[in-house]
């Protein structure tokens, strides 16, 4: 086996004994780059490549994320998803940071990502790096359970014209156009536009409230004015209407009514990045962006402007140390717009700000064998003041084709505006009371950050020349997860009629541990056939802290993420550019969401009709006409339908497909 791992096969000559011509005749495995890229990373990382995205048949970022081990994606309805990493799945995936080209799309309003408002042209995505586990030292607060880094391709690689158009039953129509040019070295640019129109999922009450559309245009330019300097300017403008259903309380009967309508979303952002790499091992990256979001839904509205600046400098010292240090600031003024009497914020206007600094040293303890990375981020935020997020990571490369790593990291999740300042009233119960009882949830300015210390280890190995195996395990210790305080019952006469209120506020009332592991094998069975899989396991051992009384919180945290997830995927390349791909998945039950376990499968068939034209048919959720994946805030849960999508893609010009 050591001989195999050394790239030497029994009875075969060493590659170095071959002539140059013989070397040029050997066929290489495609996609073999991936294992080597992550080989020296002391993190649980999975890279979804552009090829993986294309062959998944997925049409949105959350659907693509299903490809990564340890990630739980549950579609709530056509335009909402619950995304969690290593547990803690929630429509507001509070502890996962999502970045698009370094721009955070995680909103401080509800601590999470509102997916339909943050789209990208999937054809532009170079890769999505999914990091499981705490990443606070680099990515700052809220990178507690994971980081999703969406990285688009440099404009130098997207010259020419690309047009795609598709249609289906749920993804009713998608169209995209991209044009790029430049000289490939000093100045490059691209422009794109896309539109999507999505149908409703399956509703037991027959009301298709979740139809939606978005349109987006954007650009990216790269300029290299002097060697070693790269200046990137990019921006996007988007607009859309996303169908919603909310449950709204009313003090007069029937106490609770569904409210349906569109969330009108518009967004604009512009990002500037200056990177300098000198040949002396020094370099810096200066990034600044402005991001504006405007949301107006039937039950709430918000306008937010975010200004962010980040500076990171790195220098290689004495050949064995690479020191990286940086500072950053993010200032995000926002205004809440009240649209219904039972949902408000106090105050409505607020500026969330974060100032941060970090330093990290990466050094070779034993050259090429043992590498240590230690560092910390120190942040100051509006809600909880100073937070420290240190980490230490070790990487051991004992033999070719093998690496093992371990890490201890501290991370924090800072309060959202909801936890800080919401005033919300929802209907609780008519039963066992003379008057209807409503739940009044209030923000708590003293709500602390949720804190986590993660202990992780991982091992990667090549098994023979064609298979690759990755395992990562974690033990996370959580302190002060959010829950509700004991309800104080009051009776209110105005607004009439007489009603009772159970007044609760947010407290840091749940602590405990979560443990689990992810296995992800990858096997190039034949030159034309690739098999991949992943199994993810997580279990929770959470409890109310002494004095805490929330009877639902522990069950909600423990039962809103699947404890077992299995994914198997086969990709077959046929002669003349045919592709046949199948993916199966099993997701265990979510008791807190009243969701049963399910199995389903997706498939995609692709044909290359001519060098510039490709056709594909993708079918998703094939096993049943519809299945439930997550409960809906306003009952009942929405069935996620079997869907078919046909797409034609035409491309002309240089660069990558």
């Amino acid at each position, binding site marked *: 086996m050591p001989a195999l791992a050394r790239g030497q096969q029994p009875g075969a000559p060493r590659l170095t004994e071959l002539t*140059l011509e013989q070397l040029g005749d050997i066929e*290489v495995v495609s996609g073999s780059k991936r294992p080597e890229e992550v080989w020296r990373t002391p993190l649980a990382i999975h890279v979804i490549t552009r090829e993986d995205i294309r062959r998944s048949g997925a049409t949105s970022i959350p659907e693509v994320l299903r490809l990564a081990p340890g990630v739980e994606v549950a579609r709530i309805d056509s335009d909402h998803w619950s995304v969690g990493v290593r547990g803690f799945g929630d429509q507001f995936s509070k502890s996962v940071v999502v970045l698009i080209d370094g721009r955070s799309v995680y909103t401080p309003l509800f601590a999470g990502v509102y997916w339909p408002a943050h789209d990208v042209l999937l054809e532009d995505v170079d890769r999505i790096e999914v990091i499981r586990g705490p990443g606070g030292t680099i990515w700052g607060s809220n990178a507690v359970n994971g980081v999703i880094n969406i990285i688009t391709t*440099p404009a130098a690689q997207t010259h020419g014209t690309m047009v795609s158009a598709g249609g289906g039953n749920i993804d009713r129509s998608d169209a995209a156009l991209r044009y790029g040019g430049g000289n490939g070295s000093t100045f490059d640019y691209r422009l794109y536009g896309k539109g999507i129109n999505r149908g409703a999922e399956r509703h037991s009450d027959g009301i298709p409230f979740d139809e939606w559309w978005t349109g987006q245009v954007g650009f990216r330019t790269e300029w290299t004015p002097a060697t070693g300097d790269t200046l990137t300017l990019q921006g996007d403008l988007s607009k859309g209407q996303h169908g919603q259903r909310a449950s709204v309380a009313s003090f007069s009967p029937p106490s609770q009514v569904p409210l349906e309508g569109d969330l009108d979303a518009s967004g604009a952002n512009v990002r500037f990045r200056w990177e300098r*790499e000198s*040949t002396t091992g020094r370099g810096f990256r200066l990034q600044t962006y402005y991001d504006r979001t405007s949301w107006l839904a039937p039950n709430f509205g918000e306008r937010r402007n975010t200004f962010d600046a980040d500076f990171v400098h790195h220098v290689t010292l004495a*050949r064995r140390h690479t020191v990286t240090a940086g500072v950053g600031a993010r200032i995000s003024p926002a205004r809440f717009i009240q649209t219904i009497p039972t949902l408000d914020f106090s105050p409505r206007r607020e500026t969330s700000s974060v100032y941060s600094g970090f330093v990290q040293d990466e050094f070779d303890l034993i050259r090429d064998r043992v590498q240590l990375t230690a560092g910390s981020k120190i942040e100051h935020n509006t809600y909880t003041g100073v937070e420290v997020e240190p980490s230490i990571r070790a990487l051991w490369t004992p033999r070719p084709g093998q690496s093992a790593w371990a890490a201890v990291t501290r991370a924090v999740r800072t309060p959202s505006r909801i936890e800080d300042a919401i005033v919300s009233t929802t209907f609780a119960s008519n039963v066992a009371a003379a008057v209807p009882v409503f739940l009044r949830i209030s923000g708590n300015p003293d709500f602390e950050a949720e804190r986590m210390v993660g202990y992780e280890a991982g091992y990667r190995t090549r098994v023979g020349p064609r298979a690759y195996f990755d395992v990562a395990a974690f033990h996370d210790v959580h302190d002060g997860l959010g829950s509700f305080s004991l309800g104080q019952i009051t009776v209110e006469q105005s607004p009439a009629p007489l009603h009772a209120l159970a007044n609760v506020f947010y407290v840091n009332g749940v602590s405990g541990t979560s443990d689990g592991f992810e296995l992800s094998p990858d096997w190039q069975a034949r030159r034309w056939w690739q098999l991949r899989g992943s199994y993810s396991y997580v279990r929770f051992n959470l409890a109310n802290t002494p004095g805490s009384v929330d009877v639902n919180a522990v069950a909600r945290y423990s039962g809103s993420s699947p404890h077992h997830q299995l994914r198997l995927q086969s990709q077959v390349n046929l002669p003349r550019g045919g592709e046949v791909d199948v993916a199966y998945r099993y997701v265990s039950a979510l008791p807190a969401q009243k969701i049963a376990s399910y199995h389903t499968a997706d498939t995609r068939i692709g044909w290359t009709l001519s060098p510039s034209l490709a056709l594909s048919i993708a079918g998703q959720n094939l096993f049943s006409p519809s299945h439930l994946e997550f409960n809906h805030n306003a009952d009942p849960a929405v069935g996620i339908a079997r869907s078919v999508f046909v797409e034609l893609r035409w491309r002309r010009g240089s660069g990558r497909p």
Partner: protein
Amino acid sequence: MVCGLRAEAPRTEYEIKAAYLFSFGGFVEWPSRGARDEAPFTICVLGTDPFGRVLDSTVADGALHGRKVQARRIGTTRDAMDCRILFISTSEERRVSTIVQALNHADVLAVSDIQGFAARGGMIQFVTAGSRIRFEINLTSARDAGLTMSSELLRVASAVSNNRVPGE
């Protein structure tokens, strides 16, 4: 022998590239570096290392020009002066011109798989032909650095150009 190879398990791209890097050493003559000629024959990687440990195992126990061969990862072109062969990783794509300039015709065989490397003053550029790895040569860059490439190397190359980088 070639038929035998076909029956084997597929190789990864960087196993082949590592084998090429080693083999190139036998088809190039370097000018004398005086006393430093006694030093091990060093193959360096600049930028994010795509080889993992493949390069180390490829050169292990190997000898070129009567000297032991070693692989090294370097962070700067300043460190490249002790290298005989320098592989520039695709992570350095946008810095290629700086790197080529910094090498300033040093007697280092500059190899890369960055697109347009040979045209931008590099010496040997790997190119992918279907699922096979081939290479192109910029003979002028090699000559300017005082390196002599054997006719065998030039014959096997998929393209040999004589371009000098504009502006030099």
